[in-house]
Every structure is written in structure tokens, then in C-alpha cells.
């Protein structure tokens, strides 16, 4: 089913905005239940150390302190270690991590004790009174250190620091390489980065000792998942846990996992008998929230002289933290699973190797493995073109998947028009006059260049069968309920989470479209597991608009049919002869024969006699559980205009154009916002962001003075061109758009820098591209 015209596709302003613009939103730190205590966590100053002694006596005696717990205390109050929900292979190694460290601390910032006090300042004062004796141990923070034969082992019952292996394979790789005209090899390195939402993570937990019921406010993207995992860890049935979600100040994946500090808050509430709030301060957020991106990828590509890629093989090393996050090694597996990108590469064999290091856990961040895969396949295309003397766009075209559905090594791509999207982007570059601008700049001695990257994206990561087969120990379906009340107004209930991406507005548009009611007659409600419909996994993986939208569309479409049946009874007409416009049902072609949705609602709830057909159930309510048969592949092309100061190695971005296709767009303005925001994160990842560690394993990056987020001064204006290739298998034809902007940016920026520095032969194989690294590459090129 596809939709066209009407409210779906309209650039409407968001329902969320007014509260946010006026200071009326309620974020996690704005919640202050009566009697609430504030928690602080004692964090290890060492990257790796045995806890020899831990004495909390003085802290517990400090005025204003209500509870102090150690790692051992918390362990004794939970039923199991922190859960892992994504296993690539059954029986693989798993870290055993409790919410706080018990015997050993495994990274700088690893929590080992916690205090709840009248306020955060008092709790922090008490932390200083905790007496800890550490026995420092040697630490490993790089992949090479962790894999060295004599490397210190993080988990003493493991034979080494390898945290898991997986293989992504398709076709006959040996034959492809044996028959290749050309084989290219490259190694890529990606630094540690993270979501860094402006609001840190927090929880307000209230334990009821009389009913053993946990009521938790959490700024999470995954309220149902968090409820399930709270129940598992605390040994409760699911009905004993309520998770509520306030306004969220950005998520980007880093608020999707289940964190130990959430359990710590619950335990502190249980011990103290009071509600307990834990909110990361900014400094600790750099070690308490999951990191991402850090990988080393070695690949070989086999090709023919005409540019046809016949084989791809290599290894993806995920440089994990000391303990698994909720999703384990899966972001690194995803890199391998989508390494072929938009290209039909018949033979693939990629090993995925996860390695633990003395750093915080590795988890989700927007893009989830895809930006690295994109960087690799786009580098391969450009390198092959250079090697063979071909136009890189011709190499792209020669290898594009053109027939759908297409079975890639893991996922089936449902639809796409890649060559048209590439043309759309190139046309935009032509219209912008970039080639002339580059020529003029170069004539004046400046170093300016243009770079491209084409991406495709497995969005709507939802089909429960597929996500279970991929190792995810959770469903991915979405449930929605749509109601019309007695005044004819519509409420959409969803399990999806609003975290700034505009999902309430998007779902309201879908319902308003399906019901033909004014948009402002629709309210979307979410964020309370006691009442919200169930969503598998959570709001992540570019799934909310596609899967949540489809669920709402189906429910609203059925509800429309019920409205028409009731109206048909009133008019003694056939439902087929009726239409709804702006919330009024009328007989087609008969002016004056109309009834409002308010009147239908009144009959459905309050005064059914004489209006509601005898065989029609009172109320106006439809529920839908939507579990798609397949994922939906979105795609796009990014072009970047950049200049490089060869004296300093600084890169300046001058233009940024995106051609993009996410199927039917519910609200193009919101899609553009997602692409622009994602692109800014790609810029940060390509040029500025790195979580740095020194040789001893000390975390060096603990504030926004050291971890540089891109500012308005360095992010260029964006230009966006849309195409719409609907997903035929998803009601509405929607595909996901939340992650797209971040995927292709790194490669496009790298290629623009390479183009600007063509005379030096600079090749970019690692991110971020920092001025010192780039300057060294320029100087090395100048000496050649």
C-alpha cells in the first residue's frame, strides 16, 4: 500500500515544539518527587586494578547520607549479571558484569560504590570519604596491546582478550581472488567516539518495599526493553516494573541500552526507602555511557579491469570495552553485514573479531556499524578507479545492485534506484557550480576538492524473525492503538519514544491522513510501560517511522472503516458511498448529508441508541501489531566541497549536498532535519571527535573542551534533494531516515580532502582526520 497527497508528505510544524520552546518540557532532571535523594557513583581512577579494600564507614556516617552500597552489596541484591541481548554465536565468551565492579575495576571511570544523599553535592562529599585501596594492574587500551601474546587478560577465566568471533560470508571467495585481474588491500582505523547527547543519562527510581514494585523514570529510547531487563535483573515479574520516559534531550543510540547505574538507583531506593535520582554529570558521562565506532578493518578486494568487483574479504576488529554493553559485539558485526553496501559483490568473506580493552563498554551510536562499512566500500571504489584509470562514478554504476529484491550477504534489499540517486546528487553539485569554484581556487593556489560517498541503509530493523536470526534476543515488532473519543478527537498510543526526532508529529500525520481528520485533532501518547502498547527492541535502528508508522496506518485505516460503517447506518447508505473530509463524514455527491466525527464519537461512547448499529461494538478503538516481513533499504549520496590549509592541516567544509531516498516521506521537513543533524555528527566524526587514552590507559577526554563537537562555525549549510522509492512491503511505503545522515559523511569528507590534496597523493584511511595527522601526510606527500 502506498499513500500520496494529504497530510502524509506535508511539511507541518511539530506538535512537540511549543513546550520545548517555552521551557515547559520535562526532562529527567526536572523530576523531583517528594523525598527524592540524589546519587553519586565512586569511579575508578585506574584503568585496571584489583580492589584490595573498600571501606564506606565514614561515608555512611556523613550527615545527609541515606545509603551507601558497594559492588558486592549490589551483587547480593540482584539475580544475575547485566544482561546481554545480542549474541552472534551461542556459547561464545561473555563478560560477567554487575552494575558496579566487585573485585576488579576494568576501566577508568568504572563504578565501584554509590551514595544516595539529600543532594548531589552531599553525595559527592560522601564519595570522598570512601576509603579504597587499589592494586593497579597493567592495562590494555589498543587492539594491538590486547592481542599481544603476553597481554594482560581482563577476564582471568578467558584464554585471551578475544570477546567473540563471527563470519559474514557469501559466494566463492577463493575463486574470486584466484580469477581476479587486480587485488587491492587496505587497512582502516576508526577512533572511539560516542553519541554525546546534550542531556546526559539519568534515572529516578522508586522502590516500594511493601509491594516490591519498581517505578522508574528513565530517559531511555527503549522503555519496554528496560522494563524487561529490570525485571530479569531484580528477579521480578514484569508487572512489578513500570518504566516511564520524560522528554529526552537527544539519544543517538547511547540511551538505548540497559545500564548498571539504572540498577544502582533502584537498589539505593530499596536500601534507603526513598526515591533516588541518578543523573550523570558531564564529566562522568564520558566514561559512564557507551562508546562506539572504534574498529580496525583489514580488507582485500578482487576486481576485473573493467572495474567489476568480484570479491571482498578481510577482518573487522571491534575494539570493545572491558565489559559488553547490552548489545555486545553486534555493532561490529553490522559493519561486516553491510560491508558490500549498495554494490553487488558476489563473493564475500569477512571475519568479525571482538577484543576487550580497559575502556568503557562499546554500544550503540547512530549508524551502528554502517559508517565504517560505508567508509570501506567507498574507499575501495575510489581506489579501484584510481588504480584502473576509471571514473569512480563509473565504478559505482558498474557495481550497483540494480535488481530487487537482492540477497546481500545477510540482508535482502527490498528496493532501490541507486544510479538515479547518484545522478540526483551529481546534478545538485553541477547546479551549485562546485567544479568552477574548485578550478578558481586551485588557480589561486588554494587546495580545494570534491568528494562523494554513496550509501545504503538497512532501516526498519524490525522483522522479529530476521532480528532473532541475527542473534538479537528480542522481538522487533511494533504495536499501536488508535482511538477516537466521544468528542471525535483522535489519540494515538505508541510504544515508540520521542527523543527529539519528531515521532509524535510523524505518527499524528499518519493517523490524520488515514482518518481524514485535521492534524490538530490528533494527539500522540507514549512513554509509560503501564499503558503504552508494546514495542520490540526500542526506538532505534531507523525503525520508528517505518514500523511505528505502518502500525498506526493499519490501525487508523481499520478505525476509519468502523466510522464509515456507523455513518452508513445513520444515512442508510453503503459505506462505499461515503467520504470523510476534515473530520466530517458525508454522502458523496449529496450536499448537506453529513455527520461529524464528534457525533459518531458521541454515539460510540455515550448515546449509542438509534445511531450505533446493533452489531457494532461500542467505542472507537483499533489496535495493530505490525511485524514486517523484511527490512527496508533506504539509500543516498553525499557530496562535500572542502578546502585544506596545507600550512596547518585544517580542513574547512564549504558545501554539503545530500540526495536521499527513504521511501514515502511522512514529513520532508523532519527528514531534512534528521539528515542535517546526522551529517553534523558525520562531520564531528570525520574531523573532530576522538575519545583519547594515554599509554597507561588513562581516559584523557572528559569534557567538551577535549571532545570537540562541531559548532555552527564549522558545519556548512546543507542542500538536500529527495527521491521516493516506497517500500512495497511496508504499509505506507515508509523507510527509516534517522541514521542516514551520519553514514556517508565520513567517506565523502575524506574523498574531498584527498581530492583537494591530489598533488600530494594523500590517502585517508582513518578517522578522524586531525590537523597533525593530515599535516604529516601532506609533508610525506611533498617529499615523495
Amino acid at each position, binding site marked *: 500500500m502506498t499513500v500520496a497527497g494529504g497530510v502524509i508528505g506535508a*511539511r507541518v*510544524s*511539530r506538535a*512537540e*515544539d*511549543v*513546550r*520545548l*520552546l*517555552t*521551557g*515547559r*518540557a*520535562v*526532562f529527567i*532532571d*526536572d523530576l*523531583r518527587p517528594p523525598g527524592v535523594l540524589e546519587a553519586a557513583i565512586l569511579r575508578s581512577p585506574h584503568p585496571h586494578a584489583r580492589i584490595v579494600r573498600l571501606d564506606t564507614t565514614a561515608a555512611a556516617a556523613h550527615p545527609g547520607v541515606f545509603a551507601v552500597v558497594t559492588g558486592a552489596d549490589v551483587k547480593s541484591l540482584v539475580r544475575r549479571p547485566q544482561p546481554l541481548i545480542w549474541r552472534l554465536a551461542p556459547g561464545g565468551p561473555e563478560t560477567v558484569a554487575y552494575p558496579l565492579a566487585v573485585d576488579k575495576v576494568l576501566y577508568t571511570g568504572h563504578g565501584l560504590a554509590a551514595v544516595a544523599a539529600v543532594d548531589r*553535592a552531599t553525595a559527592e562529599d560522601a564519595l570522598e570519604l570512601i576509603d579504597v585501596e587499589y592494586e593497579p594492574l597493567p592495562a590494555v587500551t589498543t587492539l594491538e596491546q590486547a592481542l599481544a601474546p603476553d597481554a594482560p587478560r581482563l577476564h582471568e577465566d578467558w584464554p585471551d582478550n578475544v570477546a567473540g568471533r563471527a563470519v559474514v560470508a557469501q559466494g566463492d571467495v577463493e575463486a574470486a581472488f584466484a580469477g581476479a585481474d587486480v587485488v587491492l588491500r587496505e587497512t582502516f582505523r576508526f577512533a572511539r567516539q560516542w553519541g*554525546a*547527547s*546534550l*542531556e*546526559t543519562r539519568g534515572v529516578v527510581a522508586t522502590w516500594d518495599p511493601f509491594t516490591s514494585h519498581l517505578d522508574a523514570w528513565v530517559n531511555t529510547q527503549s522503555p519496554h526493553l528496560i522494563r524487561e531487563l529490570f525485571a530479569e535483573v531484580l528477579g521480578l515479574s514484569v508487572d512489578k516494573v513500570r518504566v516511564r520516559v520524560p*522528554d*529526552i*534531550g*537527544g539519544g*543517538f543510540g547511547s540511551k538505548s541500552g540497559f545500564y548498571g547505574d539504572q540498577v544502582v538507583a533502584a537498589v539505593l531506593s530499596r536500601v534507603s526507602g526513598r526515591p533516588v535520582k541518578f543523573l550523570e*554529570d*558531564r*564529566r562522568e558521562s564520558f566514561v559512564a555511557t557507551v562508546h562506539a565506532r572504534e574498529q580496525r578493518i583489514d580488507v582485500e578486494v578482487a576486481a576485473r579491469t573493467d572495474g567489476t568487483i568480484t570479491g571482498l574479504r578481510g577482518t573487522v576488529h571491534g575494539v570493545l570495552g572491558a565489559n559488553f554493553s547490552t548489545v555486545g559485539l553486534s555493532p561490529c558485526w553490522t559493519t561486516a553485514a553491510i560491508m558490500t553496501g549498495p554494490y553487488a559483490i558476489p563473493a564475500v568473506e569477512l571475519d568479525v573479531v571482538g577484543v576487550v580493552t580497559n575502556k568503557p563498554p562499546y554500544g550503540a551510536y547512530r549508524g551502528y556499524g554502517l559508517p565504517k562499512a560505508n567508509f570501506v566500500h567507498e574507499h575501495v571504489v575510489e581506489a579501484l578507479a584510481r588504480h584502473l584509470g576509471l571514473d569512480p562514478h563509473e565504478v559505482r554504476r558498474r557495481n550497483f545492485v540494480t535488481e530487487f529484491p537482492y540477497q546481500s550477504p545477510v540482508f535482502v534489499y527490498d528496493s532501490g534506484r541507486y544510479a538515479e540517486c547518484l545522478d540526483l546528487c551529481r546534478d545538485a553539485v553541477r*547546479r551549485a557550480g562546485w567544479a568552477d569554484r574548485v578550478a578558481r581556487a586551485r588557480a589561486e593556489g588554494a587546495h580545494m576538492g570534491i568528494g562523494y560517498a554513496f550509501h545504503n541503509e538497512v532501516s526498519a530493523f524490525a522483522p522479529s524473525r530476521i532480528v532473532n536470526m541475527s542473534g538479537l534476543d528480542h522481538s522487533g515488532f511494533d504495536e499501536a492503538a488508535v482511538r477516537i473519543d466521544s468528542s471525535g478527537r483522535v489519540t494515538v498510543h505508541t510504544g515508540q519514544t520521542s*527523543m*527529539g*526526532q*519528531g515521532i509524535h508529529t510523524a505518527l499524528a500525520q499518519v493517523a490524520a491522513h488515514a482518518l481524514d481528520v485535521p492534524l490538530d485533532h490528533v494527539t500522540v501518547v507514549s512513554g509509560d510501560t503501564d499503558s503504552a502498547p508494546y514495542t520490540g527492541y526500542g526506538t532505534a535502528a531507523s525503525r520508528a517511522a517505518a514500523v511505528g508508522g505502518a502500525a498506526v496506518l493499519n490501525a487508523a485505516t481499520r478505525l476509519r472503516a468502523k466510522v464509515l460503517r456507523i455513518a452508513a447506518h445513520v444515512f442508510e447508505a453503503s459505506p462505499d458511498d461515503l467520504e470523510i473530509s476534515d473530520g466530517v463524514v458525508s454522502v458523496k455527491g449529496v450536499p448537506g448529508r453529513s455527520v461529524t466525527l464528534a457525533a459518531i464519537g458521541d454515539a460510540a461512547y455515550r448515546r449509542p441508541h438509534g445511531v450505533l448499529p446493533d452489531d457494532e461494538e461500542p467505542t472507537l478503538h483499533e489496535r495493530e501489531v505490525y511485524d514486517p516481513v523484511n527490512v527496508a533499504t533506504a539509500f543516498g549520496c553525499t557530496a562535500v566541497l572542502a578546502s585544506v590549509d596545507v600550512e596547518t592541516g585544517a580542513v574547512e567544509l564549504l558545501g554539503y*549536498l545530500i540526495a536521499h531516498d527513504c521511501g514515502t516521506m511522512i514529513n*520532508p*521537513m523532519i527528514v*531534512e*532535519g534528521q539528515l*542535517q*543533524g546526522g*551529517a*553534523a*555528527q558525520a562531520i564531528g566524526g570525520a574531523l573532530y571527535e576522538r575519545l583519547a587514552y594515554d599509554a597507561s590507559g588513562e581516559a584523557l577526554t572528559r*569534557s*567538551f*573542551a577535549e571532545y570537540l*563537537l562541531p*559548532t*555552527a*562555525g564549522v*558545519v556548512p*549549510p*546543507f*542542500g*538536500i*534533494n529527495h527521491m521516493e522509492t516506497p517500500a512495497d512491503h511496508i504499509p505506507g511505503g515508509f523507510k527509516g531516515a534517522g541514521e542516514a545522515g551520519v553514514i556517508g559523511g565520513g567517506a565523502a569528507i575524506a574523498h574531498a580532502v584527498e581530492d583537494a590534496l591530489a598533488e600530494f597523493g594523500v590517502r585517508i584511511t582513518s578517522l578522524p582526520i586531525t590537523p597533525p595527522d593530515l599535516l604529516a601526510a601532506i609533508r610525506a606527500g611533498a617529499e615523495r
Partner: protein
Amino acid sequence: MKITVTVNGQTSTADCEPRRTLADFLRHDLGLTGVHVGCEHGACGSCTVLLDGATARSCCVLAVQADGSEITTVEGLATTSLSPLQESFRRHHALQCGFCTPGMLAVATELLRDNPSPTEAEIRTAISGNLCRCTGYHNIVTAIAAARDQGDSPNADTPPQPPEA
């Protein structure tokens, strides 16, 4: 210590610890939770308020330093209908999660008061001390520019346009 401040036109006197930041004082003692604390060290700008008419990072000001001053927070920018600047932010999708928005509005308010016709470059410079992790800034710049243009001709009411591509 006892301090007296006038916030959004309302004068309050309160006791506060010398170590209390103005941000915490506004949020926790006066209930003005539109002041958002994103970094606690003056890097992100989310907590920016107008302090005696000039923007200030309330996380880097102690409440006792603000004694006797006049403060405007995001709650003071509008009472029952959005200001033209807020309306422009809404029309141009200049906010996503909204966490940075109060700070952005404070900076843009100061900019348009002091320089009613800023260029796009001047707008970018003005907001370059405020981090936004969601929008990529494009629509924030567009919204401030549109509010500027509306200030030039109060009847201007052009619908938002897709970005130039």
C-alpha cells in the same frame, strides 16, 4: 547567603549556599527548569540566560554573584503565545530534542537586539558558542535569519522553503 534577584519580572529573595550555581538556583530554588544544564563547564551554552540584558552561562555564575540583578530565562520570553523568534524556530524546524533551545533563543534574542540585520556569517558566529547535537545548525540559522527579516517587515509571512539544493 541571602540574595535577591528579579527573574522574568518577578522579584525573589532566597537563601542559598555560596557554592550554588546560578543554573542550579534558577532550576531548583525557583523552579525554572527551562534552564538546561548540559556540560557544567561553560562549553555547551544550554544554560545561557540573559543577566542584566547580556547573555551569561548560568552554570559558570554563582547565584550569589547574581544578587541584585535582573534575569530573563526562556520562561520569560513568552507568556501565552510564542514570540516571533520562537515562532520562527517552530516554522523552520530549528529544534529537535529542544535541550539546547533555551540557550539558542537567549543568544539569538541578544543578537537581534544588538544587531537587527545580522548576516548569515554573523548569525553563525553568534551561536557558535552554543552546541546543538541534533540539528546541524542549518535550520537554526534559517530561523534566526527569518526572524531578522520579519523584524524588517513585520507583515512578512512567507512559508518555510526547503533548503536550497
